[in-house]
């Protein structure tokens, strides 16, 4: 598939990199995910939205096994997720995650935050990891902060560092869990800009967000979840113009009227 030169073909034509079949998840007695089926193609940009508590985070956290699930299967890049620690680590080394609250390591400076996984998980040399880290920091526009500590940066800067950290291991898939919802309004766009850039590069992205402008601009498909299930899924134009279910219509009314 890497021979494919045209990204458009790549997106539409090729193989599923994430395959979720009949996924069910319970927290105790609470049925958090109900028979989820979802296939994501290589290079696809998926946006997941839905009301609070609908299971969006739970769903994407199952993909890198931060959450265990009881029924169904998830296959990531040909490897099926099981309890096998080795397989889990292998998948995690190909899947990066960006969190709502950044979760940078506060005891390490920015550059060490970025080089940690490349050095310890991907066996890169310090030198190589550092070069790549600086390159990525440059790309997200904060190269000059490399030696600071996370708590010395603004929220927007921290989230950009977190994105750079996620990219440092050259992942095939990026998961975002509401990356902008903990940010002050004036910092949201600096993070979204970085994500739009990323989307253009053909990396597979699954992004939980309520930023509908962003979704319209970059998403190949948008998924609407409510009460633990996928209620509606469509390409981004149809999603906004012709919502079919009442629940989605209500949700869009609420979120777009803000």
């Amino acid at each position: 598939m890497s021979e494919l030169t045209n990204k458009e073909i790549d997106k539409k034509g090729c193989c599923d990199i994430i395959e979720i079949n009949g996924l069910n998840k319970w927290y105790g007695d609470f049925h958090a995910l109900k028979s989820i089926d979802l296939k994501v193609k290589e290079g696809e940009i998926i946006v997941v939205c839905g009301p609070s508590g609908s299971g969006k985070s739970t769903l994407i956290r199952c993909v890198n096994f931060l959450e265990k699930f009881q029924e169904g299967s998830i296959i990531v890049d040909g490897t099926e997720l099981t309890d096998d620690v080795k397989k889990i680590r292998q998948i995690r080394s190909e899947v990066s995650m960006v969190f709502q609250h950044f979760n940078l390591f506060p005891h390490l400076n920015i550059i060490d935050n970025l080089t940690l996984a490349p050095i310890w998980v991907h066996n890169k040399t310090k030198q190589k990891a550092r070069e790549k880290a600086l390159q990525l920091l440059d790309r997200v526009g904060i190269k000059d902060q490399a030696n600071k500590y996370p708590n010395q940066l603004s929220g927007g800067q921290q989230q950009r560092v977190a994105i750079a950290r996620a990219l440092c291991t050259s992942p095939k898939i990026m998961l975002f869990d509401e990356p902008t919802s903990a940010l002050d309004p004036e910092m949201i766009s600096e993070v979204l800009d970085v994500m739009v850039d990323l989307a253009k590069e053909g990396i597979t992205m699954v992004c939980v967000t309520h930023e509908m402008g962003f979704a319209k601009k970059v998403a190949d498909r948008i998924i609407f979840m409510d009460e633990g299930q996928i209620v509606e899924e469509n390409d981004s134009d149809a999603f906004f113009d012709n919502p079919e279910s009442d629940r989605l219509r209500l949700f869009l009314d609420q979120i777009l009227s803000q």
Partner: protein
Amino acid sequence: MAIYPLKETKSPPQSQIKAVVWLKENLFSSALNIALTFVALYLIYLLLPPILNWTIFNANFDLAADNQSCGREGACWAFINSNLKMFIYGFYPQEELWRVNTMFGIIVALVVFGSLIKESQYRAHYIIGSFLIYPVIAFFLLHGGLGLEVVETDKWGGLTLTVVVAAVGIVASFPLGILFALGRQSEMRIVKFISVIYIEFVRGVPLITILFMASVVLPLFFSAGMDFDKLLRALIGITLFQTAYIAEVIRGGLQAIPKGQYEAADASGLSFMQKTVLIILPQALKISIPNIVGSFIALFKDTTLVLIIGLFDMLAIVGAATSNSSWLGREAEGYVFVAMVIWVILYSMSRYSKKLETRFSTEHK
């Protein structure tokens, strides 16, 4: 539209003299406070003169004096002077004292060198290396062997013994405490169960009991012919004791680490060991520093209990020195001296921990 000119910066009004303000706020702020202040002043008036008289004004500072010529109305500091060696070295043979001095000398050198290479990238290696190698060297110097004359542990005593017991207790209990703290958090039932039982059992028992058990019960597990060193027994008991406390302190630190840190570490594919050593422990230990040091200070004080199972730490030396017929009845001088020495050591420890704390909190939170 209105435009306002920039205002000048002024210093705050200084209507009262600082000392007066301080007195008012701290000593005379309420009726109860005023009463307490006067009670405290009265107590000082009662206690201070006799203390000063005994330690200084009526004391005999003639270091060559003996018990008779010293007199009884004040302290006789010649007692400390003539027993100083015993206070520091216990009954360690005269001609081998250089070994103890070398041991203390090396530790000072290690610390000084360590503070010189603060910026070096090898600092961590240096510190860990020192912790691994120094105990071996120290044991070799104190105990002997390999050409050095062997000095049995029943000759060790005084400040040397106090420091040895405290240092071994601290250094050995630290890694063990980390293990038990992690064990108590473990998802493996058995590991968690054993850790909880151990920690709760030890914390429910006074150190004296553990020392007695170590000195009486431990030998029962070994064949009768085998001589099981008395000091070693005490060290094992103290380490077991301290481990439980350190484990609890570190567990507190572990609990303060947000869930997001574990998740970020997991999500980047780190193994359990890597996550624990690189992400979780550094943060947990940093938070726990004040409590760890507090626990070490408590241990240092507790080491005086080893006199109960027949070891001659600094406190026990007072008894030994005053039972010598030429210094009968000079316990007070001895205890005051020992208290001073221990206070100086503990106060430095606590100052040092304050320094560490502020350094970490200004560097990064």
